[in-house]
């Protein structure tokens, strides 16, 4: 008989979850932006929300940082509970991020999954250089098919006009991600 060795990886403890049901139509809906404070995150995500709202006749209802009271943000921890409650209350769909580093990708994906769990479809804005990390994190956190919108890299350090053009060009992808 061949020798036996133990696997070193252990079992996975995370329960699988599923996406929220996407709205049948986007017109009249409220789009929230949950900003993790990464450089240019608010700029590019707000532009994306505005362009998306214009296309489908929706409204940008809320742009907030994810720290307590929305006054600050730290990308390396979960969204503050008071801000999470406000986002859930004031939005029908959410754009969150930016997932363009390591811990911020982990926690942007985490926040998006928590929103999906309470019925709010959430787009995670990531970049080409962090798309793989975002995908792995989604698998690890029990929801492989998070709604990931991949922009060029980097978001931090890129000028506003370029970022706005990236956001505008991503509206079609955002619509696809929000299809029922």
């Amino acid at each position: 008989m061949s020798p036996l060795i133990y696997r070193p990886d252990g079992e996975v403890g995370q329960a699988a979850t599923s996406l929220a049901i996407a709205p049948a139509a986007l017109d009249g809906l409220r789009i929230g932006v949950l900003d993790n404070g990464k450089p240019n995150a608010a700029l590019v995500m707000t532009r994306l929300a505005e362009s998306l709202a214009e296309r489908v006749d929706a409204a940008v209802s809320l742009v907030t940082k994810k720290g307590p009271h929305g006054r600050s943000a730290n990308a390396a921890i979960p969204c503050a509970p008071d801000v999470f409650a406000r986002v859930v209350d004031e939005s029908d769909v959410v754009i969150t991020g930016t997932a363009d580093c390591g811990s911020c990708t982990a926690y942007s994906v985490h926040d998006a999954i928590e929103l999906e769990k309470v019925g709010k479809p959430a787009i995670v804005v990531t970049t080409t250089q962090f798309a793989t990390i975002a995908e792995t994190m989604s698998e690890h956190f029990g929801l492989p098919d998070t709604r990931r919108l991949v922009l060029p890299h980097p978001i931090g350090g890129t000028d506003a006009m370029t970022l706005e053009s990236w956001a505008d060009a991503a509206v079609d992808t955002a619509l696809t991600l929000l299809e029922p």
Partner: protein
Amino acid sequence: MTTRVEQRLLEVADTSPETLQAVLEEHGWGDGLPVVPPTEDRVDRMLAQVPGDPDEELGVLHPRAGVVTPRVAAVNAVLAGCTPEAFPVVVAAARALARPELNLRGVNATTHPVAPLLIVHGEIARRGGFNAGVGAFGPGSRANATVGRAVRLVLLHVAGAVPGSGDASSQGQPAKYAYCVAENIDESPWESYAVSRGVTAPSAVTIHCGEGPHNVHDMESAGDPALILDKIASAMTSLGMNNAPISQGELFVGFGPEHAHSLAMVGLGRGDIASYLFDHARIRAGVLRRHFEERAWATWMKIVADDHLLPMTGHPDNIRVFVVGGPGKHTSLIPSWGMTTSVTLPVEEGDGS
């Protein structure tokens, strides 16, 4: 019917280093170095050194959400080349890594080069053969090397901290291979670090998630210990470390015994040293504001004027003092990743049965 434990077994052609290496690579496992085959008898010898059920859950390690048990920890300890005598430290470390305040999901996923530093305290440091003295952060001690490596293998295999998927560290760092020292209690003028944090068990382990050690060399300070502390404060005063924008981060200072004695001789204790460094390692608020768009600062730090000199952490208690190393005039500063809090836990040992 196979049991859950049997399902964890893999059949291999043989247990040669070459075959083992190929098996690891095929599964995306390993740290790149050769391993010891984790056979059932070797794993059982590890498990005999810890109390309790070998399949009890010690914690869930993120981002993979892998469940770590004593058995899973033992498999990784065997792979790393640990001795059974040192293995209880790996189990305590696994528990510590799962603690929420350590924020392992962030520690593993970040682009920062953070690695968990293990500091081993008490009886097991001596019995397990850990090096607290000359070259403690470096090679030559089986316990330091293999316990440090075992913890990294647990992070790779159980927590999924694989570079490029679960670990985004832009550059990595050598401490991600193994990062384990013992506290040099024999030459410390102060009580054990673990005791100072309220852990009075005979053996304990501390985990601090930070950078590699930054050396502070001072041999000019005979009779004036302030010169040692000023040099440490100078090393702490850096815009390049995450302690600058994140005020909850700790700064561990591993004093060489000679520096420690120079300070203790004039009556300085841990709290005095922390207060001195809190007071002397400072950067102007306006400079910090200019450099960091987002600052995770304690509320009191947010309201100061631009010309105010701010400390490098929000509270003196975040400056942590221990003794490590051998003869010479060197001390190590280990800055934090930031959004993490160190954990000190007792090490529980079995009766060898």
